[in-house]
């Protein structure tokens, strides 16, 4: 028996050898990687009481460090907190930071490499180190307008961009919250507020992404723009192609069928051209196109518009990756082609898709940062507009733009029309199961021939009528506000 006791002991020692290895890996070998992980709050928290730089919109701080109490010499303060919470994020002693507070931690805390000389001089001058301030591309009036257009108690997001530069002019979502509640130095209050806020449906402060960059939603018919691009790109279709437009399409290999959109005039024709199919948002022509071109062609086009990809290095916000699922059977492919089933996109992704069409097929990197300034106001970085990827050819983008203007001038997106301006747009209504509720979308840009602004609106979990009222007509208000500036 003693021999097997020794073997059992050896087995136990072997387990401990593995433990020693694992500890060494975590604490020494892999430590740098873990320390750099974006979810790691420890670096941010080490700077908790420092004088952080401000986050600025149009010259006014929306987040700044003000004099604190005896436990901490500086206190983070947010002005118009709910309006900008999705962008600034919070900065808390217990929970660390989120949003720009987290992603720009090095700049705001003054520990980025570009601020090295400033740190040295501050040491010699005997001053406390101060962080850089960050000015955003946002337009405060548009941001406020967009925020107020989503009724309180309604979940939804709005993204307004300049399609030519990728600059984000407004990005809002509801429900929002007041980050001041979590930035307080009173730990008990802070924790109580955090738990309280997390109970509100639609708010999860534990999540690393949320709102326009994080919510993964069924895109519904706005996805048809990708089908259209794929169709034209394949060479099998051209602008005059006649598409079959049956009232419903039996789904291959299943007893179910895909009906046409009931809200428009799809039922009036059994065949349709692209213009009509987009104007009335008919489902069956696009499902047929997807079945004809196959999974790979649609997935490839979706990828070129940004599905399954990131948003580049200028956004500085954590974002969720939009999904066009692989390995679909024909029934799933047909439903996915109209933005249902497992296709999921963030509001920002849809905004970027539209921006690419507006910008002649070239997708610009979405950009939130206008400039970063050292404490002495010297500009230390100022991102230039950069191309993210080529989504489609200029000719195809032009063609889709023409059809999108039809959606607004003759089709079901009429609510977005602005007198005297040619507006291009596309609506979407993604059904949420059998609840009768939908995610209601509008995405578009204006003017169609020289796009200055792209607007994407999604209102979650509403009936068709409410959705229609809160999307296209609101887009019109934003177009007018931007173009009249």
């Amino acid at each position, binding site marked *: *028996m*003693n*021999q*097997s*006791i*020794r*073997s*059992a*002991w050896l*087995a*136990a*020692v072997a*387990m*401990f050898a*593995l*433990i*020693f*290895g*694992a*500890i*060494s*890996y*975590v*604490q*020494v070998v*892999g*430590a*740098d*990687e*873990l*320390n750099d*992980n974006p*979810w*790691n*709050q*420890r670096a941010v*928290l080490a700077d908790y009481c420092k004088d952080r730089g401000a986050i600025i919109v149009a010259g006014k701080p929306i987040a700044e460090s003000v004099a604190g109490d005896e436990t901490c010499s500086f206190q983070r303060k947010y002005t118009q907190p709910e309006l900008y919470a999705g962008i600034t994020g919070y900065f808390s002693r*217990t*929970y*660390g930071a989120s949003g720009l507070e987290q992603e720009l931690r090095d700049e705001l805390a003054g520990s980025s490499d570009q601020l090295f000389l400033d740190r040295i001089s501050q040491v010699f001058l005997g001053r406390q180190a101060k962080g850089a301030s960050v000015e955003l591309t946002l337009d405060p009036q548009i941001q406020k307008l967009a925020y107020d257009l989503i009724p309180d108690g309604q979940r939804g997001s709005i993204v307004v961009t300049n399609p030519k530069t990728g600059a984000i002019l407004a990005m809002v979502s509801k429900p929002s919250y007041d980050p001041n509640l979590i930035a307080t130095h009173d*730990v*008990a209050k802070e924790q109580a507020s955090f738990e309280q806020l997390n109970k509100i449906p639609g708010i*999860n402060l*534990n*999540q*690393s*992404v949320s709102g326009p960059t994080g919510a993964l939603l069924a895109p519904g018919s706005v996805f048809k723009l990708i089908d259209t691009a794929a169709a034209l790109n394949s060479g099998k279709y051209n602008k005059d192609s006649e598409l079959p437009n049956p009232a419903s399409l039996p789904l291959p290999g299943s007893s179910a069928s895909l009906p046409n959109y009931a809200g428009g005039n799809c039922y009036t024709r059994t065949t349709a051209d692209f213009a009509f199919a987009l104007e009335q948002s008919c489902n069956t022509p696009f499902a047929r196109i997807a079945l004809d071109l196959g999974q790979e062609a649609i997935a490839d086009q979706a990828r070129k518009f940004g599905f399954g990809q990131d948003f580049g290095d200028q956004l500085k916000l954590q974002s*969720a990756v939009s999904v066009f699922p692989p390995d679909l059977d024909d029934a799933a492919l047909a439903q996915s082609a109209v933005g249902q089933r497992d296709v999921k996109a963030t509001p920002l992704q849809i905004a970027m898709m539209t921006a690419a069409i507006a910008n002649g097929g070239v997708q610009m990197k979405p950009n939130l940062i206008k400039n970063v300034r050292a404490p002495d106001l010297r500009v230390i970085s100022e991102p230039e507009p950069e191309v993210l990827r080529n989504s489609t050819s200029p000719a195809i983008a032009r063609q889709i733009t023409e059809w999108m203007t039809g959606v607004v001038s003759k089709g079901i997106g009429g609510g977005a029309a602005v007198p005297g301006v040619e507006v291009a747009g596309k609506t979407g209504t993604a059904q949420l199961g059998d609840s009768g509720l939908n995610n209601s979308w509008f995405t578009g840009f204006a003017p169609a021939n020289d796009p200055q602004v792209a607007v994407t609106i999604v209102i979650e979990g509403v009936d068709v009528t409410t959705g229609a009222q809160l999307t296209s007509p609101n887009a019109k208000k934003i177009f007018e506000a931007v173009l009249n500036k």
Partner: protein
Amino acid sequence: MIQPDAAPKPRRNVELALLVLALAVGIGASAMVDLNSETPFDNDFWFQSSLLAVAAFAFHIVLRLRAKYADPAILPIVVALNGLGLALIHRMDGPGDDTGNNQLRWTLIAVAVAITVIWFLKDHRILRRFTFISLAASAILLVLPLIPFISAGEVLGARVWIRLGPMTFQPGEIAKITLAVFFAGYLSSNRDLILLAGRKIGPLQFPRFKDMGPMITAWLVSIGVLVFQRDLGSSILFFGLFIVMIYVATSRISWVVIGLGLILGGGFVASRIFPHVGFRLDSWWNAFTPEVYDRFPGGSRQIVQGLFGMADGGLVGTGLGQGRPDLVPFANSDMIIALIGEELGLIGLFAVVLLYLLLFTRGFRAALGTRDAFGKLLACGLSFAIALQCFVVIGGVTRLIPLTGLTTPFLAAGGSSLLANWIIVGLLLMISHTARSPIDTTPMTDTPSEAVKQP
């Protein structure tokens, strides 16, 4: 067989010296924590430190009286771990939290119970008479948390708690001991039968099917714990305990092969059927995927935050009270290893793991030294249980294996675990006493079966 030392020495004075060292570690850690608190060296500190010292010295005196040949390293190791645990739990206490004092209360209860066991049991071999009573006791202990009026309901997804007046208790921790007693009693009586019968397939001799009864029972108990109590950690622990004991009893590697096969098979099916097991695996393998990280409950936030803490600690740690273990959920219980890694660094954590290594090695040494098969099996099983429990916990925290809800012996906050582990220490001390004492005065009931196994 190992022969007793030529001139066996009690070595109680060595133990006393080591005990002073151990108390210095525990109380020193407490002092460092206190220096960083708002009211350094208040009454709580002196109260805690003196009570810990009193408990340790009382235990030492009882050993002098009742088990003077007991292994001199075991008690100091355990006191050091327990003292460090008290300091760390106290360190995590926020304003108004009473976990530290609660842990101290349980430490005193546990030491008292372990002393009682040593005082009245006198000899571990008496336990052999309770083989089947232990089995019944295990069954009752494991079923208790499922009975409506006694059960404390589902806590964090597992049903392992019962309500005892104002307190809650995890009977499964005690079941670890009663199961070990049962296995040791059953296997020491039946090992010849299990050994001799069997069929040879290839290089391995497989047991007869009817001799597999106990193993199937152990497997079913483990599966039952997993299914009804949703406690993956205990399930692994019980089954591992059994495999080692039957392997030691028979020296047949085939048991280990069958056992591992059953574990992998059961684990695979469980991960497919039960979401809580599937989540555990997913949180381990895909810990750094956003969906898994953000999932609640059952996400990987806890383990990932623990890793961040350990990485931040690096080689030498941030220093006690200087890190941010409050970012890690359950830093004073399930994740206390991450807390040690963060604040005491790789060096401190290595020291703690080495203490565990020494502890179970001393247990195995007692198993080698004692002359009765029952004692050998019991010491072996209990020592291996400590090692396996450490492996499962520390491996889980470092993401070597999936994280399961087991406590870190002597360190983690939790009364039931503390009590069970102190009783285990009491038993190991008694077995080591018989192993190291010069003449064995008790008639040995196991002599015939030992003779069979003489190499």
